[in-house]
């Protein structure tokens, strides 16, 4: 399947791309556009203003980032993914809704990568990082404390 997102990959789009490839569509192909109007009919748009799989603010004023929205729409209730969602949320929205100290570091790493690499490269490079984050939190959950 084809998935379309906005050019300029940062934390939310990189995390979404990883989530899509790893948990929704292993064969996902990503295309990068400048605005929703350029998305071809056969592609599912995500993480850009004006599409469903993106930021959403509830009546309580709390905003979900695109990663959280995709988790909800695809009924992915794995608590480890929701832990990663907290990191992505804080790195992206920085509204201090969650305690996710990793967020600042992830934000800086992704901003730096966006300066030195192309969008497809950023997505390829960050995949293993999110795999590692997932494994770290999986072991932490099993052990009940921080893993080695």
């Amino acid at each position, binding site marked *: 399947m084809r998935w379309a997102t906005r050019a300029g990959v940062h934390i939310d789009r990189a995390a979404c791309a990883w989530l899509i490839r790893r948990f929704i569509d292993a064969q996902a192909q990503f295309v990068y556009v400048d605005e929703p109007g350029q998305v071809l009919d056969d592609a599912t748009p995500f993480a850009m*203003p004006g599409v469903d799989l993106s*930021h959403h603010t509830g009546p309580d004023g709390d*905003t979900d980032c695109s990663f959280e929205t995709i988790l909800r729409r695809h009924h992915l209730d794995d608590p480890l993914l929701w832990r990663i969602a907290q990191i992505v949320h804080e790195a992206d929205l920085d*509204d201090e809704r969650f305690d996710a100290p990793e967020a600042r570091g992830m934000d800086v790493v992704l*901003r730096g990568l966006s300066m030195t690499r192309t969008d497809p490269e950023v997505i390829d490079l960050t995949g293993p990082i999110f795999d590692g984050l997932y494994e770290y939190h999986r072991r932490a959950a099993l052990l009940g404390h921080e893993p080695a």
Partner: protein
Amino acid sequence: MLLSYRVPREPSGPRIAVWRKLKRLGVAQLSDGLVGLPADARTREHLEWVAQEVRDAGGQAGVWLAEPTDAAQQRRLAADLSAARAGEYTAVRAEAEQARTLPTVQRRRAGQRLRAELGRIARRDFFPPPHRELAQAAVRALLDTGAVDPQEVPR
């Protein structure tokens, strides 16, 4: 980069949520319903999300790449943003100086809290005023003097 927006008065929830986001972003208020930030990929993305949020709440919004017709306007805007941050840095510095007389543990805690606050201000600081360094120094002094008192360490 400008955001023009109009959020319905009622319900007040979305209006307050938008206001909070703009405050966090450190925008310059040009007039009622018109705010600006220096243009870069990040500020553009943030303003576009806010615009979408306004539309989702039944309001109207647009994001514009704008250029003032004279350099003085641009300078005034930068000066306004710088002055707004200077006020925030000054408040942190005053708090830090007040906390210096607190006992060690509270002083450290105040230092950590103010360091986090400095980080929040720095993230929306596009034209750093000299007040920034003064505030940083005041918070650093708070943390430096927060070394553990040997009396407090159990034998």
